[in-house]
């Protein structure tokens, strides 16, 4: 086994793990970060989305070797108290139904808003089309992304 070094939610981690292991299993099984979900395992559903150096990657497809030396952010890393603008917007709009896909949806929304602070509906659709919701909460997801954008703008003005 090789040692892999990377940063998860701001903390440096070192894992003795096969570098071909999917990042998802490193996060869930080795680091106990179970907020990231296993959905399809073939990069088709988006439930396992995490942020790797600013990109909304599917952690079931990304090998640990790709994460080496990089920064990984999971749903647990957005805030310790659900205070991130996207998390607050999700609560305000009561987005989840079963909730299984929502951590992936939120991580994709965070990446979208980082590059586009005022997205149109079509931008949201483009950015989140790779995140499937079997409950069909897409309308609430879209509203929540708009709400999050508004909250982030207010935070920025207040800062």
């Amino acid at each position, binding site marked *: 086994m090789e040692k892999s070094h990377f940063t998860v939610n701001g903390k440096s981690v070192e894992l003795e793990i096969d570098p071909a292991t999917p990042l998802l299993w490193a996060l869930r099984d080795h680091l106990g970060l179970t907020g990231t979900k296993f959905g399809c395992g073939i990069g088709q559903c988006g439930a396992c989305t995490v942020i790797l150096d600013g990109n909304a990657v*599917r952690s079931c497809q990304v090998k640990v070797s790709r994460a080496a030396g990089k920064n990984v952010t999971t749903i647990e890393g957005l805030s310790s108290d659900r205070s991130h603008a996207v998390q607050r917007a999700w609560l305000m709009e009561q987005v989840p139904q079963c909730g299984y896909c929502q951590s992936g949806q939120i991580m994709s929304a965070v990446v979208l808003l980082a590059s586009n602070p005022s997205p149109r509906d079509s931008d949201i659709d483009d950015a989140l089309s*790779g995140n499937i919701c079997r409950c069909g909460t897409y309308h609430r997801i879209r509203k929540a992304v708009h709400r999050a954008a508004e909250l982030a703008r207010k935070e920025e003005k207040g800062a």
Partner: protein
Amino acid sequence: MKARNFVRQVAIPFVVVFPLLLLFSAIGEKHHAFAQASNDDHSVRAFSAVASVLTSPRCLNCHVPDDGPLQGDDNHPHTMNVKRGPDGRGTPAMRCTNCHQDTNSQFLHAPPGRADWRLPPPSMPLVWKGLSIAGICRSVKNPATNGGMSTAQLIEHVRDDPFVNWAWNPGPGRTQPPISHDEFVARFTEWVQTGAACPKE
């Protein structure tokens, strides 16, 4: 006496040699035209083999006129509403490499992979889908549409480029182009060396 000498030394040779020169020249030109036509036929036949690869789903699915790539042997639109984006690498939160890794997934229906997975950029989309074989040929040959490559560079590209080579190692569940990579490179080289002629519409 002078007039007789002129006729013998100048006029007779001129009358005899000049028509012969014209005749040889005409034969030469005709021969050249035949040779050119034969070379063009050869070149067009070579490109026909090349086109069998370029129109295979492994190539065609990303050389598209629309904003998003295609998938599968039936060229259906890529699921998840995937878009080309400003640099050919997708849109925010939907970058190609969010799912496509440096290598193919070993699982059926999982993303294929190569380093820097992407579409041609919108500035030079190198569209083949919807074009005739003649149109594809002109598009491949033209530096204004092929990424600024000369025909010599194109030979290197089809021989060495990882994306081109990926078509013969596309991962589980995907068909390969109808001829081998070696044959593809050989026929491409033949096409270039015989003048890179394109078929008529």
